[in-house]
């Protein structure tokens, strides 16, 4: 069988990929993050009165944090971690159990829980790297982990409350239980995560991640230590997930297996990023906002909500290889370029390089 060398002619090489050049927004100052933070900070002024709405807003931010973490792990280094919810759940359950049952101070429990999630995620990355597991096998292994965690929680009923869930006492009486305060805390975390992501993008890590994303073989040949960067991404992303899950547990006061299950968390994060743009800085934020709204709109639809999500997944992954938002942004840029060329100020880019002639016609 002939080896297939993907030329770096975009789409075919990496259907969910990121382009080689860094997104424009990074080359400018930190204003995208600042503006995002500022805009989102205004939300409580609008929704602050309704406890229900603020609760939903907090949920949305939590998912945003999850999405950024997933962006670090999958968006940057192509590790299909289908255990986003589970890693957050490790943080959440561990922190709650340590604080309530083991009676450790909440901060200590939180730190330990985050460390546990980080370690588990790092372990998964390490195993995937050591055994050279491709995207699919990594996905299956992490999915197995995710489902196992869910079953573990359900099985250890005395410790975790099983299916009925766990009331988290620690955190009660603190500012965490106030929805508006919690909102700002999570917003702060979100901003920090964005800053971390951006720092990663601009650093040596970021360059390595992008090279890895586009053409792993070439990156390795160029000296990029794929293994090391993958594990780092796994560790950082998992830490984000763990701490978010832990803080959420103490802030919300109640967690159950369904809070962190695959169908509830991972699928949504996947769709959010598919829409907002995998590997982009603000992709998770855009996805978060859109899906928070969408979720609200669909609340009355019951089971049909699942159908809508399914259709969205299909449409998004069929239509937009890098995310709906980047596709629209690209279209916009193309239109601008064409307009400019008509004004004679800039030549159109040259025709794409000829692809290697090994493409049989799609007959029948």
């Amino acid at each position, binding site marked *: 069988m002939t080896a297939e060398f993907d030329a770096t002619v975009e789409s075919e090489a990496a259907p969910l990929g990121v382009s080689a050049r860094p997104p424009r927004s990074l080359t400018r100052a930190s204003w995208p993050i600042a503006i995002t933070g500022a805009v989102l900070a205004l939300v409580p002024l609008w929704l602050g009165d309704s406890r229900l709405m603020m609760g939903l807003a907090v949920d949305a931010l939590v998912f945003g944090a999850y999405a950024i973490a997933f962006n670090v792990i999958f968006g940057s280094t192509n590790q299909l971690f289908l255990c986003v919810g589970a890693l957050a759940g490790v943080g959440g359950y561990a922190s709650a159990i340590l604080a309530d049952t083991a009676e450790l101070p909440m901060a200590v429990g939180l730190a330990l829980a985050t460390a546990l999630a980080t370690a588990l995620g790092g372990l998964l990355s390490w195993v995937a790297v050591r055994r050279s597991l491709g995207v699919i096998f990594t996905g299956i292994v992490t999915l197995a982990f995710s489902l196992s965690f869910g079953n573990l929680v359900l099985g250890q009923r005395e410790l975790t409350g099983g299916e009925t869930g766990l009331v988290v006492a620690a955190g009660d009486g603190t500012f965490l239980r106030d929805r508006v305060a919690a909102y700002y805390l999570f917003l702060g975390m979100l901003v920090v995560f964005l800053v971390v992501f951006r720092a990663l993008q601009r650093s040596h890590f970021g360059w390595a991640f992008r090279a890895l994303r586009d053409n792993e073989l070439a990156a390795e040949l160029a000296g990029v230590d794929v293994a090391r960067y993958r594990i780092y991404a796994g560790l950082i992303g998992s830490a984000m997930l763990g701490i978010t899950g832990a803080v959420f547990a103490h802030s919300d006061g109640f967690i159950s297996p369904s809070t962190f299950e695959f169908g509830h968390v991972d699928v949504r994060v996947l769709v959010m990023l598919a829409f907002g743009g995998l590997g982009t800085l603000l992709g998770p934020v855009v996805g978060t906002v859109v899906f928070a709204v969408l979720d609200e709109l669909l609340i009355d639809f019951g089971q049909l909500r699942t159908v809508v999500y399914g259709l969205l997944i299909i449409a998004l992954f069929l239509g937009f290889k890098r995310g709906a938002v980047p596709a629209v942004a690209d279209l916009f840029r193309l239109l601008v370029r064409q307009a400019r060329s008509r004004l004679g100020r800039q030549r159109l880019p040259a*025709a794409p390089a*000829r692809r290697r*002639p*090994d*493409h*049989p*016609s799609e*007959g*029948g």
Partner: protein
Amino acid sequence: MLEASGLSAGYLGENVVEGVDVQVAAGQAVAVIGSNGAGKTTLFRALCGMLPVSAGRVRFDGEDITGRPAHRIARAGLAYVPAERHLFPGMSVRENLLLGAYPGRPDPSAFEVVLDLFPRLKERRKQPAGSLSGGEQQMLAVGRALMSRPRLLMLDEPTTGLAPKLARSAYEALQALKETGVTLLVAEQQVPLALALADRGYVLENGRIRLEGASKDLERNPEVRRAYLGVA
């Protein structure tokens, strides 16, 4: 038997082959010679339906097969052995050959003929195709194509990866084939071998036919001698 008129084809909107006219009469052996990049492979792919045709027509036994999908052309009696061979690496030699006869049931006599032609394959018939040497894979590729008892056999650089002695015996086998009535169309960089086998030849250069004629005439042609036969 095979006729291409004004054929143009290429990749991503750019033509590699332009305005090519080729005729292969039944029972003949025709060679297409040219250096690397001349467009031989592109031409062959266009002829057998592996590559869409951007202009011109291809006729097989009077029937217009332009644009027909490759698998239908294969079933019509045109067998193509590409340079990359495209064997089924995980399947045994035997299975590869059996599939050559698709969709018909494999003809035991065809099987015998092929194994007699390539005794090495007989020894290795249970082995996976991927474990064969280059020469053996080439034999298998040709053998597989023969299983369908094609009327026209197209071979793209059949001597690829073959040591000179093997290349010569490959052409001896092709000669034997020709004598059984199989029409041959061969693209080749090793010009002397090709012209020795063929009745007629085409010289392809930069995607266009530069010369054509009886192979004897081509052998004597000074341009051909200089460019392809290494003679001053």
